[in-house]
């Protein structure tokens, strides 16, 4: 059901190395994670533009800020969870000065399943979305990671990109034609909308197929850019379908579900059901999919929520 699996970090590492070719000002800062984040591909091709600061995320973020202030385009990639250790540095320098720093949180959600709750990250979207000046992106697969990474580098200003470790089900073919800030309609439908980001997009698509078999046509939105939110696409979906189910491998507080609920509550009160982690931490599991089941991130739970929305009396 997952379809062909690719690896987020392999895709990111390869794309970043190619970006190094395209952007001569691109530099990469590492806090001893380059083997895990795969920025090692870039390091091998451009050793003079690869800056190792050791296991010190706060130093890494502020160093990146200095590099950006001096005209470089620094990328700092680390486990999403440990990058957040430097949230205050991100907030006070990168965000406040609107510096051209690109932060990439890898191993997000449950993707680092074996390392357990200390390494899994279910809070990053909420914490980065609240920062002024930031663009926040959660690509669904390897193809969109590459396309959105290039666009993030071209964008002048701070960006947070969230990817998983491996387990990236393919959603897009080659050349998806994505645009930062524009939600992608992956499937049209008028009964209910399923809005998802990151790896949860495949869950939304799988649920939509099952719903279709049951006679419910779901519109599927890939809201890869959480900030700035494509409010037009959200409002259109709210007005043309009976309600919205949001799906994310993240806390339901403050992430995609929160963002969409904020838009709708003010501008078009609409039934919303948020699928995600309900105010909890993760667990160690030798099987990634087992964790998704435990926390209710399955096509079945999305189907149930979508049916509840689609069949709700007006």
């Amino acid at each position, binding site marked *: 059901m997952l379809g062909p699996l690719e690896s987020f970090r392999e895709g990111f590492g390869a794309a970043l190395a190619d970006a190094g070719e395209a952007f001569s000002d691109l530099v990469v800062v590492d806090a001893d994670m380059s083997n895990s984040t795969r920025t090692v591909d870039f390091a091998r091709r451009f050793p003079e533009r690869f800056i190792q600061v050791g296991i010190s995320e706060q130093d890494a973020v502020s*160093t990146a800020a200095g590099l950006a*202030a001096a005209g470089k385009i620094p990328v700092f990639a680390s486990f999403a969870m440990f990058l957040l250790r430097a949230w205050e540095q991100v907030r006070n320098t990168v965000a406040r000065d609107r510096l051209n720093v690109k932060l990439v949180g890898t191993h997000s959600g449950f993707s680092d399943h074996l390392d357990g709750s200390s390494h899994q990250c279910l809070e990053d979207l909420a914490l980065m979305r609240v920062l002024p000046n930031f663009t926040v992106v959660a690509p669904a697969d390897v193809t969109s990671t590459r396309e959105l990474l290039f666009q993030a580098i071209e964008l002048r200003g701070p960006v947070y990109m969230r990817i998983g470790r491996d387990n990236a089900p393919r959603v897009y073919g080659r050349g998806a034609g994505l645009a930062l800030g524009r939600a992608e309609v992956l499937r049209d439908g008028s009964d209910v909308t399923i809005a998802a980001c990151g790896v949860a997009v495949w869950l939304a698509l799988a649920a939509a197929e099952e719903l279709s078999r049951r006679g419910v046509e779901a519109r599927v939105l890939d809201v890869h850019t959480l900030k700035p939110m494509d409010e037009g696409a959200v409002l259109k979906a709210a007005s043309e379908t009976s309600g919205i189910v949001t799906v994310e491998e993240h806390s339901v507080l403050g992430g995609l579900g929160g963002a969409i609920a904020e838009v709708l509550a003010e501008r078009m009160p609409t039934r919303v059901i948020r699928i995600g982690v309900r105010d909890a931490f993760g667990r160690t599991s030798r099987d990634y999919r087992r964790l998704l089941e435990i926390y209710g991130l399955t096509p079945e739970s999305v189907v149930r929520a979508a049916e509840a929305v689609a069949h709700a009396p007006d």
Partner: protein
Amino acid sequence: MDWREAGVLRRVLLRALNGNQALILLRASKSLNRSLTSLLRDISADHGVPLSTLKLNAKILRELGLLDYDRGQRPVRLTSAGRKVVEILSHEGDPLTGHVYSLASRLGPGHLHSSLTCLQILKAVFSIKRDSDVVVLSKGHAAPALYSILLERGCVSEEDLRGAGEPDSRLQAHPEAGLPEVLVSTGSLGQGLSIANGVAIAARIDGLDRRVFVVLGDGELDEGQVWEAAATASAHGLSSVVAVVDRNGTQLSGSTEEVKPKEPLRARWAAFGWEVVETSGPVRSALEEAVRRAESSGRPAVVIVHTGGESGAGAS
């Protein structure tokens, strides 16, 4: 009275007097035959402090026996004790000191001492800074000192200073990027050295001859990130980075050695692979020495400036 002795006494005095009181004393020392009201009106206009606040503080100064005036025509004047206090407060005789007092009273009186001890450091740094060089004020709460120097350099106006601390002012409580000579906003401690490293690495990649001066507080050295960055700078041989520590011996809760000891400070920096220069005298020559040693050794250099009269182990 030497520099360090004056530093101790000034610190003691500033625990007793607030910034507005110090300002009134400094201005009274320079005025001849002025009535109190006319003096306070001038101060109010120049520094944007409400007249009523100044009147209250003048009254306190009179009660303390530092200022003498009455409601009649007799001019306001300092008592002999008042003159001694002024001598200590403005020991360096720096004309910028008055601006530091007034800015600190507008931006946060708690940072007055730190701004005063930082003033001579920043003056020295700016005196050797070349156009291509960058200064990062990691101890952003010394903004009053920085803004006074920006005034002297013609980067901001007296009018800017009078409006400091207002929402529409570019002189915020802590320096913000966009001001001349301010490349990156600061205010949260412990981050400036990392930022300076980033600027220095970028310059190295681009082949630029650029020195990066970063001014740190001694209390700030409690932040772990400073030592992350100290290790990064030496690991990368960033000899263009020159750190200056304002060793005034004071942090928010009291003496630095009581709150959390910083000594042996020279040995700490040396252990991280830095060239270390210490001074309790003129800062400029110490900075030049640091630059020379950094260039010849290929290592980053730090100047520890004893500004506050702490015992300063190893300050020889």
